[in-house]
């Protein structure tokens, strides 16, 4: 039961990652690509959580936490750079 649901969830998240990858490659502006990278980070974190449930192991949890933190830093740095032309003033 949980295995089937986890497999379906992994398929949904893979589709979501494909859609954000399409936006990342196509996006008319740089900011579209920044948002697409942010979505990819969030989806990778979600995929690690679902994968941990599917494999019945808590091994991937720390990786998901690190990805969540680094994704925020990346997005903030990109947005700050595009806004001010510099990251740390």
């Amino acid at each position, binding site marked *: *039961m*949980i295995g*089937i*649901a*986890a497999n*379906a*969830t*992994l*398929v*949904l*998240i893979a*589709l*979501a*990652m494909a*859609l*954000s990858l*399409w*936006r990342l490659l196509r996006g008319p*502006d740089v*900011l*579209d690509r*920044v*948002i*697409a990278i*942010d*979505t990819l980070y*969030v*989806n990778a*974190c*979600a995929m690690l*959580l*679902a994968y*941990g*449930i599917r494999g*019945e192991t*808590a091994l991937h*949890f720390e990786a*998901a*936490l690190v990805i*969540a*933190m680094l994704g*925020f830093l990346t*997005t*903030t740095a990109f*947005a*700050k750079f*595009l*806004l001010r032309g510099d990251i740390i003033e």
Partner: protein
Amino acid sequence: MTTAWELLVSALLLLGGAFCFLGALGLAKLPDVFMRLHGPSKASTLGIGCLAIGSMVYFTVREGAPSVHELLIIAFIAMTTPVSAHLVARAALHRRLPRWKRRDDTP
């Protein structure tokens, strides 16, 4: 054989996956940057919250001891996503990106 907590975990997993997919669908399909921000910053946050709660229930029942460290992910995503969305929206305003205009002949 299927117990209530298995149903709960499966429902939370599917709900989380569906919300993540809807967020990415909004990112791919909506017409301008300001609209595209909405999908990832709201739907994906809810999706990852559902997934983390499902993981919390699953490991709590399976290990027999409370497993609350998934709350860290929820707290971190819920705190940081609005900040990054705000910064991206301000950068988009600053760059004067084109906005979507409704034409008169569209319903």
